[in-house]
């Protein structure tokens, strides 16, 4: 299956779906136009509540990551989410808080954190050198 959901994780299943679809789209494992499993297929395969899957898909559509085509299913769209730069920065800043707090408590030096950050950045962006706002347009 294209998503790995861990029902015992304290991360809600809804968030696990959202995060993994975004990550896979961002890392190129899912490409523009790829059809992803229907709500029923994914819920049945993973033994999770279809309402949870439907809600995650709806929110991914709203963010522009997915596009639902009636009768055909959901496709990776990755068009711009319509959020302004300021909002995007605020979202990312908030998301970074938790790993940084963790690094602080693990007494990791700032340089080590930067090394990890750069490696991850490279892994996900690869050789994508497009400017802000240019992606997927």
């Amino acid at each position, binding site marked *: 299956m294209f998503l790995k*959901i861990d*029902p*015992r*994780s*304290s991360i*809600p*299943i*809804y968030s696990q779906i959202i995060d993994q679809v975004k990550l896979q789209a961002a890392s190129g494992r899912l490409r523009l136009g790829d059809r992803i499993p229907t*709500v*029923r297929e994914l*819920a*049945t395969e*993973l*033994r*999770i*509540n*279809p*309402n949870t899957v*439907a809600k995650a898909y709806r929110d991914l559509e709203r963010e522009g990551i997915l596009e639902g085509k009636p009768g055909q299913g959901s496709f990776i769209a990755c068009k711009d989410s319509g959020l302004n730069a300021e909002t995007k920065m605020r979202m990312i800043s908030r998301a970074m808080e938790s790993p940084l*707090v963790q690094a602080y*408590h693990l007494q990791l030096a700032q340089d080590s954190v930067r090394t990890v950050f750069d490696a991850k950045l490279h892994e996900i962006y690869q050789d994508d050198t497009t400017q802000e706002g240019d992606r997927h347009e």
Partner: protein
Amino acid sequence: MNESIVKITNVAKQFGGIRAVDHLNLTVSRGSVVALLGPNGAGKTTTIRMMLDLLRPDSGTIEVIGMNPRTHAKAIRQRCGYVPERPRMIPWMTIRKIMDFTAPFYPTWDPAYSSALLSRLKLNENQKIRNLSRGEEARLALLLGLAFKPELLILDDATSGIDPAARRDILENVIQVIHEAGTTIIFATHLLHEIEGLADEAVFLIDGTIKYAGRMDDIKQSFKRVIAWSDVSLTDIPPGATVVTGKKTGPHTEWMIKGFRNEAWQKLMSEHHLEIQDVSLEEIYLACHDESAG
């Protein structure tokens, strides 16, 4: 989602001086999937049977789809699918015969849908009940509970003691019904991993009363295993948290904590190098169980 389909208020039931259900309060929202968990004798089946007027409460009130089971048992049963652990079915009948026999009781019985369920549940309509395996019996019970498109489906240990393939077929059909019809599901079970990803809410029933109830997402946030590798006593734990169980094994001590909040524990975690682990529903269940036993 907030409209309640079941409302149990202060219900008690005794059997020969033993309290099977002890002043129970429980509300089930329409469209939700509720896991009813607890050891044998906790009162799960008694509670379910009272909802269908198969038993009568000594005191308290029950409302199912806005009706009182004591006065509207038939109307309730016509709109609730009920799949018991060991369904009683007449052995000489074929599957087709029992379907024809059951259908007239339900005004909303859908013949086309019941035929579709036959193939979905991989049943042969010409087979006799007496020749069915335990797994086939359970699948047939689910068919009879679904063919009239109930608003509420109650599964009382319906998947216990059957083979994994039959269990899969039952679960997949339950998932389809949630998807297609938004049916409310009450799922009493001991197989906790089965409903871990499916339930919206979990209710832990022990000794006839609710030990703990909450939304699955909240439960997963709230319960954590905390492990200390050095000698630490959790005397001043952050406010809001309680120690459910604790044990010392070898060099480390571990606690099951309820009411965990990441922010509140950060300081304690770094001071004592505590390890925090997510726990499965089964582990939470066992901790709640041990807490009341101990």
